[in-house]
C-alpha cells in the first residue's frame, strides 16, 4: 500500500492504493492521525484504488473516526469498490461511517 495525500481547499483527501491489510493498516492510521492532528476537520478517505481492507484496516478507520468526532470534524469515505463495500456491510459499519459514492459528492457535502 502507498498513500496519496491531497489538499483540496479545507478538505484533505487520503487515497490509499493497494492492500489495507494487517501489515499496512498502521501506516494508513498514521496518515489519518497526522491529518487530524494537523488541523484537518474535513477528511476524505478515497477507496478508489483499494484492493481490499481487512479487520486491521477497520480498526484504523474507527480510531480516526473517534479522533475526528472528538475534534468535532467530519470524516467521509468514498469510491468504494463493490467487494470492499460488502465488508462494510458484513461488519455493520455502514451506519457508522459517512459513505458517499464519489470524491465530488464528498466535496459538495463538505462545502455546505
Amino acid at each position: 500500500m502507498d498513500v496519496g495525500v491531497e489538499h483540496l481547499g479545507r478538505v484533505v483527501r487520503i487515497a490509499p492504493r493497494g492492500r489495507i491489510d494487517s501489515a499496512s493498516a498502521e501506516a494508513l492510521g498514521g496518515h489519518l492521525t497526522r491529518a487530524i492532528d494537523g488541523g484537518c476537520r474535513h477528511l476524505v478517505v478515497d477507496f478508489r484504488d483499494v484492493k481490499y481492507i481487512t479487520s486491521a484496516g477497520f480498526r484504523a478507520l474507527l480510531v480516526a473516526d473517534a479522533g475526528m468526532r472528538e475534534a468535532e470534524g467530519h470524516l467521509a469515505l468514498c469510491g468504494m469498490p463493490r467487494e470492499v463495500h460488502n465488508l462494510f456491510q458484513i461488519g455493520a459499519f455502514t451506519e457508522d461511517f459517512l459513505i458517499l459514492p464519489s470524491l465530488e459528492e464528498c466535496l459538495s457535502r463538505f462545502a455546505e
Partner: protein
Amino acid sequence: MCPPRPEPRARATLQLRARNELAEIGRIAERVESFGAEHGFPKPVLHDVQVCIDEVLVNIFNHAYDDSASHEIEIRLEVDERRVLIEIVDDGRPFDPLASPPPELVAAAARRNLGGLGIYFIRRLVDHIAYERVGDTNRLVMSKNLRGAAPAD
C-alpha cells in the same frame, strides 16, 4: 511448467510457506494474487480469498505461539472448476478460531470491541470452513465457490 490456460479449468495448486511475521503478509498476498490472475479467479472471489488468508495468518501470528521463536505456516490453495480450497496449517498451540465468540455488531462503532471481527469476516466470506487438530498442528480448511458466490450486496 505453467499449466495450460484452463478452459475448462484444470485443477491447480499453489503451496506457500510463511514465517510468523507481519512482513510476510504482503509477499503471500502477491503470490495469491498472481495465482488468482493466472487461473481466472472472478474478482470478488480473489478479493474474499485474500481477505481470508490475511485474517487467518494474523490470527495465527497473534494467538498461536507461546514462544518468540520463528515458526512456519503452510498455505495451500487448490482451484478446480467449482471452487477454491484454502488450507492453512500451523504448529501452534491448539486453537479453534471457530470457537471464538462473534464480535459486537450493534454497539456504536467508537465503543465497539472488535475482537473476533477477522474470524467473523472469514465465516461470512467462505462457503465452508472446518478446523481440526492434526498431531501437533492446527489445520483450517476453507472453501469458496467460484460461481454462485454470495452476492456483494
